[in-house]
Structure formats: C-alpha cells, structure tokens
C-alpha cells in the first residue's frame, strides 16, 4: 500500500507527536454506574404496555419430514393470543431444535404450555451428528443440494466465499496454497505429522437471544433486540415485513454479550425476527421472544469443530520448509468450519504453505462466527504442532517462531513477553521437573494471533452537537456489547473539544441515532471512533468560526488554550464561547474514509494493517489426577492507539478467560442416538469461572498507525485467539507429551501420559 497520506479525512493524524489528554487515559465506562446499580435495562427486561410472551415450538428429532402441525390445542388455551406455523407439511427437518411454530400468550408460563401443546407430526429420518459418521460412506445426507453461505459481520470480511460443491456431506472451503508443499515435505530433513481435534463450543452470552416487536400501525414497528448489529436487525425486519427501513426502529440500549452469535433479526438457527413480528401482528400487541438455555445451546450458533492433520517439514537446523494443514470440521447444517490464518499467514518465512479446510455437514444446529471465526481452532493445532516439532529438533519454540515470523510488532511482542513472563526460567524449571518425574509439573507455552484492521469506511455516521449553553453531546446508533464504545465516543469528542468525559452526553443503541457498524470482526472502535473525531473536529471548526465572527478576529486566530478558548487576545471559557452560537447551536455529522495505511505491516491481501498479539501461558499439571491449572497468562497485544486502556484491558482479560474455557473446560456433547445436545444448560456445559482464573498480565505495545483519524484498531478477537493454543503448548512442556485434543480434561491428560508409557 502507498505510504500514509499527510492527512486522514482532512485531519492531521494522531501520530507520535500527538499528546492526548483524554484519549488513552484509563477511563471508567460511562454505562458502569447503571450496570452496577442494576438499572441498565436489557432487551429481556423491556416491557411495553400490553406485552405478550412468545415461545417457539421446536423439532425434537434431528431429521425428518413434517407431516402436520396442529396449532388448535394451543389456540384453545385461555391466554393464548396468537399462534403461527414456522414450517409446513413437507418441510424438511435437519436438526433438533429447528423452528416449527410459535405462540404468544399473556404470561410466559402460558406461552410455554401452549408451545408444548402444539401437535406436531414428523416422519423421522436417519441422521448423523458425529464427524466420523458424517464422513462415512452411505451416511445420511444433510443437504440435498449446495448450501448458501451465511455470512455475518462477525466473519473476516477478506475471506473468499466457498464455491466448492457438496460431495456427500463434505464441501471444500477456499484453499490457501503458496509454494509446493508436497515437494518441500519430500525433501525435508524432518517431517512432523499429527492430527489435532477441537470440539464444538457455544457462545453462551449470558443474555439469551431476545427480541420484542411492537407494531405501530401496518407500516412501522419498534424492535428491541439483543443484537450485535442494530442495523442488520433493522434491515432484516424491513425486508421480511416489506417495510421501509426508516419505519423500523431498533433499540438495544444494553447488550448482554454476543461473541458472534447475535447478528441479524434471526438467530443463526431460528427465524426469531419473523416469528416475533408475525405473532405481534396477529395478536395486535407487542410480543417478546426470549430463548431459553436449551435453545441457546442447540439452535443459536456455535464455534464449529475441527480435525486437523498438520504436517510440518523442516531442515535439521530448524528452518521450516513446509506447513500443511488438512482440516475437516462441522458447523452442523451451517457453513464455515475453517481454521483461520495461523498456518497460512503468520510464519511466512516458511516458503511452502497450504491450508485445505472442509465443511462436514451434520444434523446439528448451524455454527456461526465465534470470536475470531476459525482462528482459535487453527491456532491450537498449528501452534502445538510447532512446539512438538521444536521438541524433536531440540529448539526453543519461542525462537522457532521468531525465526519464521516477519511481523515487526509481533516479533517485539515475543521479546517483551519473554522478559515479562520469565520464559527462560519457566522453561528450565519445567524441564527439571519433567526429568525428575515429579508428580506436579509446570510448563510454559506461547502462541500467536493474527487479525486485521477491519475498520469500515463511510458506515458509521456520528453526530456531535454543541448547544448555546455549552453542553456537548454525541450520538450514533452503535450498540455497546461491553467493549466500551460508548465511552470511547465520549473520550474522542472530549479530546477534540477540550472537555472532560463527564461533560459529554452520549446517546447510542438506537437505529434513529445514525447508521453504525455491527460489533463483529473487531471493527467497532476503528469504524466509530474516527467518525467521532471527524464530527467533533467539524464542531470545533464551527465553534471557532462563531467565536471569530463575534470577537472580530480571523478564524485562524482562535484556538484552545487548555479548557478555554483564546480569540486574538481574549480568553473565553467554553461556555462563554458557546454563547456566541445561535439558538440552534452546532449539529454536525462525520464519517470516516477508507483505511489510509497498512502500516506497520500488511494483512494478507494488503490494504489494511495486520494486528499481532502473543500470549504466554504457564500451567501446573498433576500427573496423578490429570488436572491442569493455568497459573499465569502474559498477553502482549497491539491495537494501534489504545483509546481506553481500562476497558481494553478488560476485553483482553475476557478473551483470555474465554480461551481458557476452550482450552480446559468447554465441549458441547451431541447424543448420537437422539441427535440432541446432551449438555444444553450451564451446569454440564462448563464455562470457565473463578476457579480457572489465572494471574493475568496484559501489556499493550502502542503502534502508531495512520490507518484512520484516531489510529485506533479493534482487539476483541485477537484477545482470545492464542490462549488455548498457548495453554496446550504449556501442557506439552509440562508433560513432554502433547494432548492433541481440546478441552484438555484430566482424562485426556491421563490418556496422553499412558500413551507415552506404552511407547517403546
């Protein structure tokens, strides 16, 4: 990409010489007080007058043909106000949990009873929920024809669409190939070949998918949605019901998590938006649909599974010559079981690289993007394979990585981590305990992440107002998923207008406040914050012009002087300056232009920067019980200019916790005999919790990127990409034998240890 322009969106960059006073300071999130006082109202708690409660009737079998749906037992019940079919005779059932019908009633208890009363006849058919069974000859086919890909704002926007055809239950995803892997493997001194597996895990946002629809006449509606993308809900509802988008108001004031599963009005496996809207229309009253935990686990998306055969070729002195990954994974009936970019795009000093991934369809609810689609899966397999190879070669796995990674920031991050984490001492201690055969072992591992600056041009429109009384407000229709974008909006405006964060009123979470982006792909901050700066700079300009005119100096003679404004030789307080405005004050809208630079290092395909990030994990393993405890994570990340270190650090700590669940506790179990999820709840599906909490050390490497007018880049996804991989590498270091499947439960550890004993 060309060198950075002198200005970005007409503004000087917030570059190395910029000395911010608000941006970059640890700032309490502005919605914190409402959240801690239990006052924040989430979609699940919105109660418009006359509210009815919806419930969805779902298939209890994994495959079959609908023969009939009789709603009358439900409609006859007292308190039931509407009932609609969501399938018809002849409809094909492809997973347990699929939509069949929906009801609305005056209480949630009646709605549930009415849903249970709906009579459904389904002719069951053979099904397959297990990867091996789905790959076997003669396996029941999940899809008869090619499958349309479901893409969301949670996906990596640079990833090519799959065009391969379905053979049996398998469909290839776009392959990545550079060099000649087979030839390189043939000629390599050392070839390492092993297979790794990752489970299906689920998003488990604590707030379930929820939606309330209230019609306002026939051609307008208000939708309260628990969503990562207010505008995708708006556009989908408008399309489904044939309304003008401007006639659909979507509100998401507070959002109880999403992690990739909450884009659009429909949940990945359920037409919730249509159901709630149609029920509300029929009942002539607002209808709320809130899914329960079984529905969440079975229907609303998951991170696809994977089985990855990794082959690495190297020279005897430790140069990688080939990386080859052959992957199969299942996103249930859905698409997108890829394995991210660790194998293809991090260790690019290895000349021959190939990644071939495949979707394997099974009769389970659709997978969807989950915090870095494909990446944690791919990172686990490739990074652990690298460590196994390094052990064969007698090399330090950290050195091996640095030797093959050209990214200047990630290389620096490795070095910072080496110090902060005491890598050398920990590795030495692990080796000593291993050689001595100690019961309690320790281990240290490291893994990398790759992500891109996916900030979007001209989507977010941020409006800044300055009133004659000196009050400043900013508004944009973005939802705050918990990353703290509302606070960043206030910070950016406060920075430009020399105010305190508390002086800036922020309105967000509503489609009427100006178009915005979805909270996916770690793109929120880099899309919204620069737009806020553009708007705030315009407001500043307008204010200076008003002051110049009133005071009788040229506009160029007006400038901030601390919180005051200097005009020629007059010094005015901000409020005094604003008093020169007319009654309407200032109201200006800004948006950001295209990404202006890919510095310091390009993302594959160019045109945008590549984000690094490495994490080091320390574990303690009890070789008698197989228990693994992660004792420390040192996370060294970059995301351009950090807007709010407080919330950003929280987000990274949160990504680490999610990664620990992936490493140690989480797996969704399907019952092969019933085709249903066995642990569709939160007591048998094990989220990581206080018991798993390690020491967490987060360090940011500041990077001046002239990519956009604030230099900010997102961090949501990179924060969780390397965690499980680093933990798996640390367990390998502790045991001397790798556990090649997640989660690393005690039985998996003991099985790995006994394999080692059997080995000659």
């Amino acid at each position: 990409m060309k060198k950075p322009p002198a200005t970005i969106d007409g503004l000087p960059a917030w570059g190395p010489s910029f000395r911010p006073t608000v941006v970059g300071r640890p700032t309490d999130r502005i919605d914190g007080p409402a959240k801690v006082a239990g006052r924040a109202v989430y979609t699940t708690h919105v109660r418009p007058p006359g509210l009815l409660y919806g419930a969805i009737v779902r298939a209890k079998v994994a495959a079959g043909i609908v023969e009939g749906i009789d709603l009358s037992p439900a409609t006859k019940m007292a308190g039931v106000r509407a009932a609609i079919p969501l399938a018809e005779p002849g409809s094909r059932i492809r997973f347990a949990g699929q939509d069949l019908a929906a009801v609305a009633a005056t209480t949630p208890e009646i709605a549930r009873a009415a849903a249970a009363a709906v009579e459904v006849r389904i002719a069951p058919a053979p099904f397959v929920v297990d990867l091996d069974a789905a790959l076997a000859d003669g396996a029941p086919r999940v899809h008869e024809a090619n499958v349309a890909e479901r893409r969301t704002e949670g996906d990596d926007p640079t990833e090519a669409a799959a065009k391969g055809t379905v053979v049996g239950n398998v469909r290839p995803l776009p392959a990545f190939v550079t060099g000649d892997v087979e030839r390189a493997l043939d000629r390599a001194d050392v070839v390492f070949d092993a297979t790794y597996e990752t489970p299906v895990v689920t998003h488990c946002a604590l707030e379930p998918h929820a939606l309330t629809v209230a019609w306002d006449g026939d051609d307008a509606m208000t939708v309260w949605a628990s969503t990562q993308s207010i505008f995708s809900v708006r556009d989908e509802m408008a399309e489904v019901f044939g309304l003008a988008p401007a006639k659909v108001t979507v509100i998401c004031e507070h959002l109880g998590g999403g992690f990739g599963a909450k884009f659009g009005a429909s949940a990945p496996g359920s037409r919730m938006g249509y159901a709630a809207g149609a029920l509300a229309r029929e009942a002539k009253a607002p209808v709320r649909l809130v899914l329960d935990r079984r529905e969440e686990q079975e229907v609303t998306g998951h991170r696809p599974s994977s089985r990855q055969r990794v082959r690495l070729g190297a020279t005897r002195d430790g140069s990688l010559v080939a990386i080859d990954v052959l992957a199969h994974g299942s996103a249930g009936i859905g698409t997108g079981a890829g394995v991210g970019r660790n194998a293809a795009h991090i260790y690019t000093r290895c000349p021959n690289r190939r990644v071939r991934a495949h979707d394997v369809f099974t009769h389970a609810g659709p997978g969807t993007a989950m915090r870095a689609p494909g990446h944690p899966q791919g990172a686990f397999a490739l990074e652990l394979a690298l460590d196994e190879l390094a052990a064969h070669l007698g090399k330090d796995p950290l050195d091996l990585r640095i030797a093959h990674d050209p990214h200047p920031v990630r290389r620096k991050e490795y070095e910072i981590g080496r110090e902060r984490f005491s890598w050398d001492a920990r590795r030495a201690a692990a080796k000593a305990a291993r050689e001595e055969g100690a019961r309690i072992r320790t281990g240290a591992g490291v893994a990398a992440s790759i992500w891109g600056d996916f900030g979007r041009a001209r989507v977010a429109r941020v409006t800044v107002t300055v009133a004659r009384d000196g009050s400043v407000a900013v508004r944009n229709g973005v939802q705050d998923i918990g990353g703290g974008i509302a606070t960043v909006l206030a910070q950016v405006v406060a920075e430009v207008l020399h105010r305190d964060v508390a002086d800036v009123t922020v309105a967000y979470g509503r489609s009427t406040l100006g178009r915005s982006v979805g909270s996916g792909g770690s793109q929120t901050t880099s899309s919204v914050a620069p737009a806020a700066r553009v708007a705030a700079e315009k407001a500043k300009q307008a204010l200076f012009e008003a002051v110049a005119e009133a005071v009788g100096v040229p506009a160029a003679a007006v400038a901030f002087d601390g919180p005051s404004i200097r005009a020629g030789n007059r010094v005015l307080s901000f409020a005094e300056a604003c008093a020169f405005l007319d009654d309407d004050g200032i109201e200006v809208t800004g948006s950001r232009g295209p990404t202006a630079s890919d510095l310091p290092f390009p993302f594959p395909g160019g045109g945008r920067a590549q984000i690094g990030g490495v994490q080091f994990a320390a574990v303690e393993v009890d070789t008698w019980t197989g228990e693994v405890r992660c004792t420390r994570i040192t996370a060294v990340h970059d995301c351009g200019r950090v807007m709010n270190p407080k919330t950003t650090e929280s987000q990274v700590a949160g990504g680490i916790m999610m990664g620990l669940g992936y490493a140690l506790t989480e797996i969704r179990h399907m019952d092969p005999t019933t085709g249903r999820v066995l642990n569709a709840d939160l007591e048998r599906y094990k989220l990581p919790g206080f018991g798993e909490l390690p020491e967490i050390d987060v360090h940011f490497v500041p990077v001046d990127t002239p990519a956009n007018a604030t230099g900010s880049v997102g961090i949501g996804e990179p924060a969780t990409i390397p965690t499980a991989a680093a933990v798996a590498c640390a367990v390998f270091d502790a045991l001397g034998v790798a556990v090649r499947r997640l989660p690393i439960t005690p039985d998996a550890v003991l099985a790995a240890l006994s394999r080692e004993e059997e080995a000659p």
Partner: protein
Amino acid sequence: MSDAPRLSRRGLFRTVGGTAVLSGCTREGGGLRRPAHPEVAGPDPTEVQLVLDGRRVRARVPIVRTLATCLTEDLGATAPKVACDRGACGACMVRVDGRALPSCSLLAVDVDGRCVDTAAHPEPPPLLAALRKAFVEHDAAQCGYCTSGMIVAAWDLLEHANARADLTEDEVRRKMAGNLCRCGTHRAVVRAVLAVARGEVTAS
C-alpha cells in the same frame, strides 16, 4: 402492582417498621415475617406481598411463577437476570431475608412475606454502595448481564465474612464460584470485592 403499603388480607404485615423504605434487609428473618405460605395455594393465581428493595409491593401470580419472573415481569425489577433458569449461573441472585439465593429457582409464593433485596436497592446499605463503586473503578462489568448477580453474591459474602478485612483472594474466588460471567470479568470482580473487604473503597 402498587407501592402503597396495605395491610394484607391476612393482616400479616405487623412486623414491618414504620419506615416506608427499609434499607436492605440484612439480617436473617427480616421482612414481613409472614409464616411459610398457607397450606395450599392455587390453582388460581394468588397474591404475594414482599418488601422489595425496601418498599412494600404485591403481585398476583400464578402459583408456578418463579420469583425471578415475578420480580421482572410483575414488579418491573431490572436487576435480576435469568440466564440459565435453573440455579447454575447466579445472574438472577437476590437476597431473601438477607441470604443470597437464585430467584429463578424459588417460587414467588414461597417467598411471600419476605424481604427481597436486589442489586438495584434505591437506598443501598454501605456495603452495597461500596461494591457498586468498586465494580466501576475496577471495571468489573463489561456487558453487565452477570453484574447484578455478582454484586448480590459479593454483598452476601462480605456481610457474612467473619473477618472481612482478612478475606483472601482464594476465599473470594471460592465463594463467588457459583456466579458465571461470559465476558470474563473475573479478575476485576475479585479485585473489586477485595477492595471493599479491605476498606480501600467505601460507600462515601
């Protein structure tokens, strides 16, 4: 619902003090001291009366209604959240007569006459007020959906701790283990709770 104090039809409001707002029922056995619900309830909806966050309230509920549903749907409470609906996550935690319990796993009729405190108490007792402050300072709420439950659990833990100032990180983790958070606020929550335990953050 109504906030108006009213003698129950069974005249069992007698232990309620003269104040309109009770500032957190922090002792066991607070509340309206109604006996366990009369022998039989239902099948028709039945009236329950509570002191909710210091205010007397009543609601007519189906007998199968959970306390969580009663609080959020009948009484408009915004603090308790139902995330699992079966006692596994703690997001719905409230204090019933000064003990933290999952409101999804109690029937409304079974807490008739009791004192129910949520994280949203309008006149928070000092511990609750301090916890709110500490949670903001330590950024212990990301999406915030687990937060009310976390705060109730922490409030309970601190109030019943023998030697609050000596609470260790391990004890906090153990006692909070029933509260789940998907955003991963755990580290911040532990820091916030310890800050209050040690008096580093106080109500005022």
